[in-house]
């Protein structure tokens, strides 16, 4: 990246604007079309999906439930009906395969807000960042489960911006716009990627789910890297890139194995040298040469 330039300029020159925003566009399409499925019912009376992201029923047969909300319910001591449990297991199995944090980058509506915040932050050249430990989210995840167990109430869902925004869009926002604004301002002015990358316990949970996920981004052609740093600049969890991209000397394979990686694909987009591509955890051979499993088919959820 040129000093003062924005990440991906080289990629735009090489691949064109659409080529350099391919996964961003696909992700937005995924996020918005999932939301649209929920809104078709209340807006147009076309009931394909009922409910919201916490729990839903598709075509009156397929239950899907958020496993973290269910975990909180279990912590309170209530055993849910089988519909919710089955729905939770389906969702869990899906993210176990494609990467837990695919939820964050391909489904979660707050991601659009925090991506926008990151863009504004870059435009405004906001410097400095509150130093939240990236372990904070695990502490918060533990805390919300403890609060649920001690209070017997699904307390986190009273304030959870993720489910609040989704429910708000489908059922009515109330003052939830204020919470959206708070997350936005937090990410712009308080800390870079503070919400999604440091604090959000939902992301922490899905990160843990995705530790063993099959679908991975791989720096297959890492020897082509010219250290432009565009991928680091664009990555919402940039600590996950280094081991894979720069680990050749240490015998570390090219596949990004961290559960924090959201599989957003932006590193693939912004790289002008075509270093990254979607791959699987099984192709993590440290001597991996050009090639690997190339997932042309797109991830959606």
């Amino acid at each position, binding site marked *: 990246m040129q000093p003062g330039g924005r990440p991906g300029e080289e990629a735009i020159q090489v691949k064109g604007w659409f080529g350099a925003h391919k996964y961003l566009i696909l992700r937005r399409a995924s996020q918005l079309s999932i939301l649209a499925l929920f809104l078709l019912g209340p807006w147009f009376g076309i009931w394909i999906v*009922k*409910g919201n992201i916490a729990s839903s029923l598709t075509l009156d047969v397929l239950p899907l439930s958020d496993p973290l909300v269910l975990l909180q*319910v279990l912590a*309170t001591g209530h055993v849910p009906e089988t519909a919710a449990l089955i729905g939770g297991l389906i969702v869990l199995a899906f993210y176990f395969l494609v990467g837990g944090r695919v939820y964050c980058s391909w489904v979660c509506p707050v991601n659009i807000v925090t991506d926008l915040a990151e863009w504004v932050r870059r435009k405004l050249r906001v410097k400095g960042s509150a130093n939240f430990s990236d*372990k904070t989210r695990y502490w918060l995840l533990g805390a*919300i489960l403890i609060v649920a167990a001690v209070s017997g109430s699904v307390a986190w869902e*009273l304030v959870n911006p993720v489910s609040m925004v989704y429910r708000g869009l489908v*059922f009515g926002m109330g003052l*939830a716009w204020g919470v959206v604004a708070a997350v936005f301002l937090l990410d712009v002015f308080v800390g870079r990627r503070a919400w999604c990358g440091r604090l959000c316990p939902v992301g922490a949970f899905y990160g843990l789910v995705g530790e063993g996920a099959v679908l991975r981004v791989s720096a297959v052609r890492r020897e082509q890297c010219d250290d432009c740093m565009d991928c680091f600049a664009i990555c919402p969890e940039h600590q996950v890139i280094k081991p894979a991209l720069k680990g050749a000397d240490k015998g570390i394979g090219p596949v990004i194995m961290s559960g924090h990686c959201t599989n957003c694909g932006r590193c693939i987009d912004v790289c002008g040298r075509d270093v990254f591509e979607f791959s699987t955890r099984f192709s993590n051979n440290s001597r991996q040469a050009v090639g690997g499993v190339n997932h042309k088919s797109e991830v959606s959820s």
Partner: protein
Amino acid sequence: MPDSEQQRNGIDPARRRFLTNTLRTAVGVGLVAVTLGVYQRQARALPATAIRPPGAADEETFQGACIRCGLCVRDCPYHTLKLAELGDEVALGTPYFTARDVPCEMCDDIPCVKACPTGALDHALTDIDEARMGLAVVIDQEACIAFQGLRCEVCFNVCPIRGKAISLDYQHNTRSGKHALFIPVVHSNACTGCGKCEKACILEEAAIKVFPVALAKGLLGRHYRLGWEQKAEAGEALVTPDTPHEYNLPEGMRYDHAGEGLIIGERPPMPSPPPQRGAPEAPQSPFPSNPLDTLNGKGNNKGKGGL
């Protein structure tokens, strides 16, 4: 942490930084957790006009079981239910209805309960008449026109369990002296809390309102038993019948229960019944011929005390 100064200086800086950071995060998250705990307690304070869907357990249990998905709202054919939005007084995202706006129509198949994926709305509820969403209360007897002697009975007539959940109690109208008051009376053993009475109340502000059962219902002391109910259950009185009290007093004393108390130094043969004593004095009868004279104290027993 080591306590002596030397050890503190000797601690590895990286380790020190790690411990400081960990402590900072732990304290910060702890504060968040405590705040969340306090907030969820406040969130349990359900406003009196917010009624939960059928099959919802008490508020504490409900808020542990409901995942705020809104499937009950979607399957409610009358758009009665809504999810609490941020800023509403009801816990965020949980379903409720306001009876005065849209009451529950008490569907026979209870679709809202069937839709609930977690059982926060208890799937064991299959008969809507068994639902206890709330309890109707004739809260303002000053405003209810039935208490003014005017004919209304709208709440009685709209009640889906008419005659059982709300009945009419006919009382004398003391104002006119010749009419009846048709007083609506709610019976908690049948009222489901659907809120149709509150919705239908003709007043500008309803005089009959549905409240959460916990608010509306009184409770007799748990030890309390009503004698007549116990008697009906057992088929006989459970307490020993009264027996005439016998006093074991020294000779020359007696106890008069009717007011004079302990009587000392009277004629010793008092224990024997007075009629026998009095027989020689008044051979015909100790009482005047008109019993009212005895009752009014005009008889010849006056001054001698009762029997």
